């Protein structure tokens, strides 16, 4: 499914209502949410495309902020599609990920040194004794 420049422009406006610039981070549109990252999202989530097109048709001629508010209040499923696509695309941007100091669900080997032994953490649990009810008659 393809989106033309008018649709992308509209999406950029809605996206900025959800993710404005701030705290050193770019806005959604500045991060390319309505551009290449939208295409990346739809490449793996084609199921979202048709509903997004409907939403953009509904949003034409409306104030982006007011439209997003109304969508959230009156059409939670539609808002859910927008709320999946916009931040989903935003967090694909490597610059955003770098600013978050987030490099993905990367592998982090388990430290073989056990961390439950230090500070006597388990001592008081053990000292409080059993907390289960035994089988009757045992």
């Amino acid at each position, binding site marked *: 499914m393809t989106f033309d420049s008018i649709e992308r422009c509209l999406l950029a406006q809605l996206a900025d209502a959800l993710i404005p610039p701030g705290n050193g981070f770019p806005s959604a549109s500045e991060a390319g949410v309505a551009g290449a990252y939208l295409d990346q999202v739809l490449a*793996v989530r084609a199921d979202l495309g048709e509903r997004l097109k409907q939403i953009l048709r509904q949003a034409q001629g409306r104030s982006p902020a007011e439209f997003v508010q109304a969508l959230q209040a009156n059409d939670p499923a539609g808002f859910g599609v927008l709320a999946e696509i916009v*931040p989903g695309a935003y967090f694909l941007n490597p610059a955003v990920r770098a600013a*978050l100091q987030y490099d*993905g669900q990367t592998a*982090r080997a388990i430290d073989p040194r056990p961390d*439950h032994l230090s500070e006597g953490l388990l001592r008081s649990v053990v000292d409080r004794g059993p907390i289960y009810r035994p*089988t*009757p008659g045992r």
Partner: protein
Amino acid sequence: MASGSTDPDPDVLIIGAGPTGAVAAKRCAEAGMRVVVLEQGDWPDYSKARADHPDFELTAGQYWSANPNRRKAMADYPIDDADSDISAVLYNAVGGGTVIYAAHWQRNMPSDFCVRTLDGIADDWPLTYEDIEPFYDRVERDFGVSGLAGDPAFPPGKDLPLPPAPLAKMGRRVAKAHNELGWHWWPAPNAIATRPYGPLGACTQRATCMWGCVEGAKGSVDRTHWPENVKRGVRLVTGARVSRLEVNGAGLVTGAAYFDRSGQEHFPKAAVTILGASGIGTPRLLLLSASARFPNGLANSSGLVGRRLMMHPFGTVVGLFEEDLGSTHGLWGQHIHSLQFYETDAARGFVRGAKWGLQPTGGPLSMTRSYPWGDNPILGPNFHRDHCKRLGHSAMWGIICEDLPEDKNRVVLDPVLKDSNGIPAPKLIYRMSENSRGLLQFHLARACESLQAAGAYETVIAPLIRETGWHLLGTTKMGNDPATSVVDAWGRCHDVPNLFVCDGSIWPTSSGMNPTATIAAMALRCAEHLVENRREQKVAA
């Protein structure tokens, strides 16, 4: 055995290649029995596991979705859940529910087997903790369970085969808080390999355990059991959707009818049949197997097939912390668990309890979703401030609530809905009880206190969501009296002596624990009994 084959009929036909089928097939094959297993799904496709891709969070809920109504894979059958407070989630594939489970490996407590005796409600199991304990020990080795012996919430037992997962920053914080509160906690048991173990790789804490473990560290039976079972001679038939069980004039099961992927029907025969198709698939199949001799469904003279469905209402509390806990990563999975409020305290106004498991919260997209964050939307003017407060700075308790059995909560055949082979689909009729609601509210409040004591400056109680019916239990009750139960203490159907049910369907009560440990141990116990008594076993001629 598929029609047209020249192989002799198997000794054992197993329906379902989830944990029950895997464990039962292993034991029967070890004993030299010929075993055929019918599984409607295929092997999981780990090329679709994208934990190491930037789009992981966007794609995880597709191929790895736990809800068959959403996943709509070829192997899935639809489930009518319109009349249920909770949607069932399951996975139709080699490995079954273990493909998507979080691998929280919880034994039941002794009291879980004697609820009637101790709390005056529901039923006792026809066995005790001590009866099942040796089977826990054995399956824990097969599944590569990690954890630490000596937990005072359980009777003393043997060491687990692998050391526990790290407490991590979040676990250490909560552990210290619980020590100050005088509340129980313990390094959590998981069917997740903390070191390389047999066919399992070592966990690398990606927190993606439910959506395709790329390291192969999770103890799902497609990895721990099936490759070895197949090498041992078990014949595993995938793409085999069973439509009914066949019964002879003597009232014994002779085998099953199934459709292959092309829609062709087959009629494999066997001396003994074992059902391991889940708390929904198993009663569905028994109800589908109604006949003139068994007009209310096979093995259903008690009228209990499909009834007493229990699904474990699930709650979540998230805590927000100033400290960076590194909680994008970890085990999903659990780092610590608490059973402080597991046992009944009548003063609380309800009976029974819940188990808590402490987990990470995941990556950046997860911070924006309605679950677990509920009506705390962050999309809008303060997005970046609020997002940074959550990402890596949050930890959550997942709370498994015991569900008591009620006859009115049930699985029936849907009068309209059918699967792609035209077989009637299951329909769930389930309402959460007042006891469960009271229990859940109490535990959510205590979990908030736990996280606040650990330093959380804010806690968020997740909304109750429908798609939490991971634990499908109780629909072919086990007991000694054929008038009030479907199977005996060994899973043998009272009405059909060569038909066994060994999955979570047979649980008389649900416990408040993640059930796979006990499902696996019960499957082994039932299979062991079948092996030991095979010379006396009635079989179809």
